[in-house]
C-alpha cells in the first residue's frame, strides 16, 4: 500500500509537476473571476469565500478524470485487482494520493488567493480550516466518481456530471464556514457538519468505489 502511494506520488511529480498544477489551476480560476464579474473590490470581497471554494472544487474535479483512467488504460487496474491488495485499499490509497497532490497544496495556498480576491481579514483562518476539513471529502467522492466512469472513453464530462451533485453538500457547508468566518459570525454548526461529511465519506465510500470498480473491470 505504501508502495502504491509512493508510486502515485512519484507519477504525479513526474507528469509535469502534478503538485504544482492543481494549484495553478486554482490560481487561474481566481484570476479569471474578476475578469468575468468586474474589478470592484467590495463585490469581489463579498463573493470571495464562495469563489475560492468553487475554485478548489473545480481544481479537484479537473484532476479526477485521470485518477483511475490512466491505470485502467494501461492495464494496471487489472493487475492490481489480481494482486494481494484488496481493492478497497487500492481506492483509498488512490484517494489519499489525490488529496496530497491536489487538496493539500490548495489548503496551504488558499490565503494567498484570498488576498487576490480581497477576502476580509478574519476570513483567512476559517477559509483554511474549512478547506482542510472539506477537501478530503472531495477526493474520496471524486474517487468514487472516477471508479464509476473508468471504463468509458471520454468519461471526463460524464464524471463531472456525476460528481458535482455529490459535491453539493460539501460545497454548501464549506463555503458557509468560510463566509460566516469572513463576516465574523459563528461557524460551529457548518464546520461540524463538514467534518461529519468528511469522516462518513472516508469511512464508507471506499467500499462503494471498490465494488463499482470490480464491476467495471469485468
Amino acid at each position, binding site marked *: 500500500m*505504501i*508502495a*502504491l502511494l509512493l*508510486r502515485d506520488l*512519484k*507519477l504525479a511529480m*513526474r*507528469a509535469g509537476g502534478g503538485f504544482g498544477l492543481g494549484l495553478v489551476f486554482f490560481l487561474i480560476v481566481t484570476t479569471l473571476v474578476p475578469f468575468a464579474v468586474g474589478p470592484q473590490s467590495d463585490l469581489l470581497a463579498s463573493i470571495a469565500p464562495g469563489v475560492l471554494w468553487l475554485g478548489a472544487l473545480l481544481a479537484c474535479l479537473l484532476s479526477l478524470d485521470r485518477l483511475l483512467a490512466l*491505470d485502467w*488504460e*494501461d*492495464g*494496471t487496474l*487489472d*493487475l*492490481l*485487482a*489480481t*494482486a*494481494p*491488495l484488496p481493492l478497497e485499499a487500492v481506492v483509498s490509497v488512490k484517494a489519499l494520493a489525490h488529496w496530497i497532490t491536489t487538496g493539500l497544496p490548495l489548503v496551504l495556498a488558499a490565503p494567498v488567493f484570498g488576498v487576490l480576491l480581497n477576502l476580509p481579514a478574519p476570513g483567512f483562518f476559517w477559509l483554511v480550516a474549512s478547506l482542510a476539513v472539506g477537501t478530503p471529502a472531495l477526493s474520496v467522492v471524486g474517487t468514487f466518481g472516477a471508479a464509476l466512469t473508468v471504463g468509458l472513453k471520454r468519461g471526463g464530462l460524464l464524471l463531472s456530471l456525476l460528481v458535482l451533485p455529490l459535491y453539493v453538500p460539501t460545497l454548501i457547508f464549506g463555503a458557509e464556514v468560510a463566509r460566516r468566518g469572513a463576516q465574523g459570525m459563528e461557524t460551529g454548526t457548518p464546520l461540524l457538519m463538514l467534518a461529519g461529511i468528511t469522516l462518513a465519506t472516508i469511512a464508507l465510500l471506499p467500499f462503494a468505489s471498490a465494488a463499482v470498480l470490480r464491476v467495471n*473491470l*469485468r
Partner: protein
Amino acid sequence: MTLTVTDLAIARGGVPVLEGLGFALEPGQALVVRGPNGIGKTTLLRAIAGLQPPLSGRIEGAEDRIAYAGHSDGIKPTLSVTENLTFWAAVFGARGIEGALDAYDLHELADRHAGNLSAGQKRRLGLARLLVTGRPVWVLDEPTVSLDKEAVGKFADAVRAHLGQGGSALIATHIDLGLDATTLEVGPFRALPKPVDDFDGDFL
C-alpha cells in the same frame, strides 16, 4: 495445488462464448490455449484470473495464486524500468528484482523510462513482472507479441524455469513457443446459440 476448471461457461458482452470447458492444470505443467480469433481465449483467461465471473461451472485453486498478464502490460511510461518492477515487487510482497532483470536481459535498459522502450522491449518488461509476483500460476494472454526470436527463447526459458520450481502456466497464443506443453484447443467448446423461445430469467 492443482488449478481445476469444471464445466465452465463464460460470456463476453452478454453473449456466451465458451461452454462445457474443463481441464486440470497440475504444478509443473504448462497448458497452451489455442483457437481462432474471437473464440473466447481472452475471456477464458480473464475468468480464470477472477476478473470476471463465469456464467456457470467451477474454477478451483485459483484464488490468490494467479499472476495475470493481458494485452496491456500495466507499465507506466514515466517510471523507469527498475521503478516499474520495484513497484510490482512491493505490491506482491517484496522479493528482489534482480532475477527478473536477468531473465529478460533488462540490465542495460534498467534506468530508461519505460515510455522510451520499443514495442518488444516493453513486452519484455511486462513479462519480467511475472517473475516478481512470486505467484505459482501464470495466466498469459499472447505473451510473445512483438518479441523477436531471441526474446521468445528467453520467455520459453523463463517458463521452463517456473515449471521446474513447481509453478504452472496457462498461455493463450497463436504461435509456436517451443515449449513442451499440452495444448487445449477451445474451438470445440464454442457456445451454441440457445433456441430462441427459451425466454429465461437471465435473458441468455
